[in-house]
């Protein structure tokens, strides 16, 4: 099959029913989409297929034949992070990082489709993504900030607007 990943064309040999996730990870060595469940249940495998967020673990490779796949590397590199990547760094929206790739791509698709900073819209769009570490709050904050087009200072992380510190504190 012929797929393009982040603008690079590949001719793949995996059988057409191989999950796209396994083609990317095992055949092409693109390991950023993660194998969280291979059941379509967690979202960690999410990639963009012609701009749409799809769960690559349950998408047969044949569906991606001729398509443009975007993985998280396609959003931006360390020297030039995309808005949503910057938002995730600044808002501490990743802890162990395992769900992050899928979460970012789903967020990017949401923004590409005109998603706003309305938390319920974000929760609706990303609601099928499971994160066990963050409790989701900072992920929602990050996507909302990205939707608002904020600029991010990457040398610090955002103060939780709901947190009050009493006693000692930063000197």
């Amino acid at each position, binding site marked *: 099959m012929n797929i393009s990943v982040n603008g690079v064309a590949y001719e793949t040999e995996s059988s057409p029913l191989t999950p796209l996730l396994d083609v990317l990870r095992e055949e092409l060595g693109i*390991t950023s989409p993660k194998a969280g*469940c*291979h059941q379509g249940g*967690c979202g960690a495998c999410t990639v963009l297929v012609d701009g749409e967020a799809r769960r690559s673990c349950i998408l047969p490779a044949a569906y991606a034949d001729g398509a443009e796949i975007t993985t998280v590397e396609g959003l931006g590199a360390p020297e030039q*992070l995309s808005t949503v990547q910057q938002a995730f*760094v600044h808002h501490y929206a990743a802890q162990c990082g*395992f769900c992050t790739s899928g979460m970012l791509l789903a967020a990017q698709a949401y923004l590409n489709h005109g998603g706003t900073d309305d938390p319920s819209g974000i929760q609706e769009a990303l609601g099928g993504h499971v994160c066990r570490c963050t409790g989701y709050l900072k992920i929602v904050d990050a996507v909302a900030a990205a939707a608002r087009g904020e600029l991010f200072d990457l040398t*610090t*992380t955002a103060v939780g607007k709901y947190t009050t510190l009493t006693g000692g504190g930063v000197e």
Partner: protein
Amino acid sequence: MKVVGARIPRYDGVAHVTGRTTYVDDVRVPGTLWAKALRSPHHHAGIKSIDTRPAEEMEGVRAVVTHEDVPLNVYGHLSALGIPADEPLLAEGDVRYLGQPIALVAADDEDLAAEAVSRIEIEFEERPALLDVRKAFDADAPVIHQWGNWYPHFEAEMDRRQIRKGDVAAAFEQADVIVQGAYRPAAIEHAPIETQVCQVVPEPSGRLTIYSCTQALYFSMGVVAAHLQCSLNKLKFVGGTTGGGFGGKVDTATETMCCLLALRSGRPVKWRWTREEEFLCSSTRAPWHMEVADAVTSDGWILGRKMLTLHDAGAYARFSPYGLTKHSFHHTGAYSIPNLEFDGYVVFTNRSPTSAMRGFGVTSVSFATETQVSRIADVLGLDPIEIRLKNANRIGDTSPNGVVYTDPSTVSTLQALAESTGVELSAEYRTMTSEPRTGEWLPEHLVPQLGNPEEH
């Protein structure tokens, strides 16, 4: 201070958002074989016979291991803490929980490994299962563990964790009300997004490089070294970046098996658990059964507590005696209760062995203690915050195991919560501090349990 106290971004934050963070499953070593496990389909059964040859003879199958291939099959992970060994790495003679690993196969690809597992011939003889901790002590309960149905190796070979303080009988006699309840939090999954995964590479030097998702590199290395009966420098654990753990990646559930397969086949071996395996076979938080009876005065003093805990350890002890001990040390929670009678048992059942999970031992007792105090407040018609402040840990109070509180924060955290939720406390509670109790805040029943903070 410039750095400590500052909101510095994650060290690996940029790596996380650019897909550059490397987890075990991202490591690529040419020639890697895939491992799959033969797991018990029964809750409890004897293994009458096992024949792995049909699997070994398949083309593309490079190694099959059973308990016979493990230099030391039964090793107690917490033997350094005096907890003897009871759990086999690979089942030997019997199986005691659904999903217990019996044999491991390494083959050229995942499907082949799974097919090979299905070809292993094994004959079971089903045995009755024990599932309810409350019935484990009955004369007619099936006996499911070589030690009996509950752990008998606490200090002085006691069969329970015991806390005694003061005079519980007197406290219950003096009480105006006795409030009693039973508390049963469930087993839950760690369910990290990264499943258990391990890759072992046999090096030309004879060492084994072990890419592991463990939460504890050296702890797991010690476990593997013990099972393999080798020195630590034979092993190199590579890891330190785990896709979520929550206590479930300390069990060292994959590393030794992969080492055995790598040694047997001479090839790199990877074992990645499916999500089904993770949900159905991995260790869980323990279910607990706790019964609490509190002797209270009508103005809200908790004079004494009697408590029974049955901890559901699943099929083997693992870390359960440790968890129960921690549980017992904290069974009065954020309060100082001077008269105590606690008995706790680590009970075996035929389910996945339970293990550490976030809060291990204390999560359960916090649920029991706090719901109990809420109930007491409700029964007595008292304010739920004020009753907690009344009985709060204060400097100089002693814990269930005799440790003196030098700096408790029950009072400050409750007061902050009250203020934040717009609850108006009466003056005496609003101005309360954690300083040692005096005057009317030091009734007779609390005097004997005080300790000297200077000594700690």
